[in-house]
């Protein structure tokens, strides 16, 4: 299985080639790189020249690329087929012929897209890029249609903000008074433990001002998210009841 290429006297077919495991992705990439290093055409029988190299490399990688092993094996088997066809008189049935042509075609297509990637890469390195306008239009717009808003999106935008980098407290810090959500959570937990359910109306009515109401409301959100409590509502404008998920009087 002496190849007609490569450094003389090398024991391994891989000797003298500096292809790192991190340098390529998948069998086609490896094959294209091997071929390019040989300065060969990507198509046809010239692929032969790198078959042993590829098979040896694929063998070596087999375990590291377990998820891609089948693909490597497939490519290797096609290469082996190519090689056998070159060494032996034509004995292959036609479907094998197809499979060889198929590999050549795949290599050609892949090499073309590799070239595209190189071109895109070069564009980025050249540093040219267009920017869109980020300003939102300042033109007066008609008032939004009543009821068209999605409250869930509003809340999820806010939740995201609180989770990413901002403590909830800073969100609801009122200009004059401060209410800590953590305090409200504790307060509600204690009341739920003793009472089992709480009407949101009564919780809200007990709030001194809007800031406290909001802190309380955010605390309710936290309890529901923690699954300490569930929220029930009878109908669209019905009263809202906060219910402990634990049995009343439990632990």
């Amino acid at each position, binding site marked *: 299985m002496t190849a007609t290429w490569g450094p003389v006297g090398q024991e391994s077919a891989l000797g003298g080639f500096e292809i790192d495991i991190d340098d390529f992705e998948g069998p086609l990439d490896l094959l294209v790189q091997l071929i390019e290093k040989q300065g060969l055409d990507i198509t046809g029988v010239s692929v032969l020249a790198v078959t042993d190299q590829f098979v040896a490399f694929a063998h070596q990688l087999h375990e590291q690329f377990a998820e891609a092993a089948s693909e490597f094996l497939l490519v290797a088997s096609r290469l082996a087929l190519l090689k056998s066809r070159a060494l032996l008189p034509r004995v292959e049935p036609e479907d094998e012929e197809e499979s060889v042509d198929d590999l050549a075609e795949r290599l050609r297509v892949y090499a073309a897209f590799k070239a595209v990637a190189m071109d895109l890469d070069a564009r980025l390195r050249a540093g040219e890029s267009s920017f869109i306008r980020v300003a939102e239009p300042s033109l007066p717009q008609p008032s939004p249609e009543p009821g068209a808003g999605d409250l869930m999106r509003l*809340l999820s935008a806010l939740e995201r903000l609180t989770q990413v980098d901002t403590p909830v407290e800073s969100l609801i810090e009122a200009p004059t008074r401060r209410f800590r959500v953590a305090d409200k959570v504790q307060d509600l937990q204690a009341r739920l433990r003793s009472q089992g359910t709480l009407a949101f109306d009564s919780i809200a009515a007990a709030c001194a001002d809007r800031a406290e109401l909001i802190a309380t409301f955010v605390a309710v959100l936290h309890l529901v998210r923690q699954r300490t409590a569930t929220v029930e509502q009878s109908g669209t404008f019905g009263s809202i009841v906060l219910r402990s998920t634990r049995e009343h009087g439990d632990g």
Partner: protein
Amino acid sequence: MATDSDARTEPDDAVADSLDGDFGLARTIEGLLFVADRALSAAELGGVTGASDVEVQAALRELIAHYRTRGIVLLEHRNAFRLVSAPDLADHCRRLLGLDQRRQPSRAALETLGIVAYRGQATRAEIERVRGVDSDSALASLLARNLIREAGRLDAPGRPAVFTTTDTFLAYFGLTSLDELPELDLDVASDEAAVRPPPDV
């Protein structure tokens, strides 16, 4: 049009003039004004381009003249410059943006709106401290949609505007008061997937 790189200037052709010499600066400033999300001062433009104030002013005059007949206008207000759509196109723009209204507000706008709603009132600086990013254009779009309004000014340096939500805000979300907020499906609101950082490329 004068795509000609020929340096000769035709006397009567203002466009050819504009391609002459310092058009490089004018087109750089044009691009900067386009991407900016606020009005830019001549000093800022000088800082970014490295051009002198005289050069920047000349380039701005040239651009103002160019945009006099176009669908975009270059406005000057207190020595700050901003590209806006031509005033007579307002109806067309409104029609276009009206089509957009069926779309939900941007996430930036929603975050800003949420902060104003939950705090009761907030200044731009407070909003930006919470969001960690410039929130000028988000505020502008909320004001334009009448979802927030200026409630007054703080008695602090610069007398910053204090924003609060409007009745339109309540109507938009189908609320009559804050009490109705908890009817949300919180599992969706707290979807963890939304906060995962994007994977590296």
